[in-house]
């Protein structure tokens, strides 16, 4: 029987939220004062309904997804679509946030998604990323995360896998704001 992974508080992994690209005041009040918000900034209720939508909404776009499954627990790191590929490891929320996710980030890449805050069994995630690097010989890894502090764990996992892998590959980190803007895009040091 395959192992069932449930979502819930991660028990055995803790990653520093101070990941490059995540604003240091991500959990502060709007005025940026010293008072910290109560509770988790990743779960704070925010309403963007007033936001003006711009751009051409006409026409239909083709999906750029070229594989199944996509959830990191479900994928085999040695699946053919990962062989020597440019892989996108995306936090679950990213695709719902970035308007042109398919066109600008998924196109031409193989993907896996994960949530570093809620997913269990994250040691397996590190092993799978390491297997991508060493066994499947992926070309590059792009990690797309939200600006909320808990999301930095996904970059930390990629760094941990890269450090323990025999091969070295370029790893890029892209941080997305809650309203879908790209806050930073930079190559990660191994």
């Amino acid at each position, binding site marked *: 029987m395959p192992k069932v992974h449930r979502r819930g508080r991660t028990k055995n992994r803790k990653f520093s939220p101070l990941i490059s690209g995540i604003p240091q005041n991500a959990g502060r009040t709007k005025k940026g004062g010293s008072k910290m918000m109560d509770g988790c900034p990743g779960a704070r209720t925010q309403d963007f309904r007033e936001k003006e939508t711009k751009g051409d909404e006409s026409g239909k776009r083709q999906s750029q997804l070229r594989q199944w499954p996509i959830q990191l627990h479900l994928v085999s790191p040695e699946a053919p679509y990962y062989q020597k590929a440019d892989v996108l490891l995306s936090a679950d929320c990213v695709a719902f946030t970035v308007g042109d996710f398919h066109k600008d980030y998924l196109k031409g890449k193989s993907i896996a998604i994960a949530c570093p805050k809620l997913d269990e069994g994250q040691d397996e995630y590190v092993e799978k990323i390491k297997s991508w690097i060493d066994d499947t010989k992926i070309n590059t890894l792009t990690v797309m995360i939200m600006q909320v502090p808990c999301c930095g764990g996904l970059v930390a996992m990629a760094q941990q896998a890269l450090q323990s892998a025999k091969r070295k590959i370029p790893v890029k980190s892209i941080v997305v704001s809650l309203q879908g803007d790209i806050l930073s895009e*930079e190559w990660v040091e191994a």
Partner: protein
Amino acid sequence: MERYLNTPIKEIITSFPEVGKILEEYSIGCVPCTLGSCLLKDIVAIHNLAEDKELELMYRIEKTIYPERDIKKPVFKASKKEPDKEIRYSPPMKRLVDEHTLIKKWIGRIPQVIENVDIESESGSQLILDGLDFIRFYADKFHHAKEEDILFDYTDKNLDIIRTILADHEAARGHVKEMLKAIGEKDTNAIIGHLCAYKDLLTEHIKKEDEILYPWIDRGLSTTQVGELFAKFNEAEEKMDKGVIEKCQKFIAEAEQRIENFHRS
């Protein structure tokens, strides 16, 4: 102005020396360039200045070339944010920059070598020969070969900037050849002359690559190409004799002490 945008920069600076000074104010160092064949329009584009700075630069150059013309001064809106001064390289490009760091260490020691050069003594001539080996194997075969055989395939090799870089490589090889000849002939003046010329050439060359060429190439590379380049650099390094590279790194680590000992004796 269209005519001058398509004119090699050396010709413009020769006719209008003030243009060279203006370019230097914007950290565009074309004046000491050995070739100067890049077109003005390419130079402005490749330096990736903030929009307001680029408008200001073009206005000043045009005003210098055509002082009698009534050129409308563009309204310079202050940039909302200062452009990022720190250059962030992709991993393969960062590797080339790191290799420059080792080459710069040797270049930095050349003045001391020149001051104490004694080609008649065995230790003196050996120091020069070891320095030349470092240049030939590390700076040229290890570093320049990666650029010529791999990196430049991702650019248009007919571009002036690439031709300038390749001409620098050839000029450096020429100095090494002449130095080897001068060592055989025990011609101290020729050794000093070529060592000095090599130092000046490489100092300018590395600055050009670190600050202009590599960031420019990086801006045009896709993520896939960055991965390919990284893998090709790894393959090229695996084919190299590791012992030779380690010997070059050891030479730099010990060079200071050897020069010091030489100075004392």
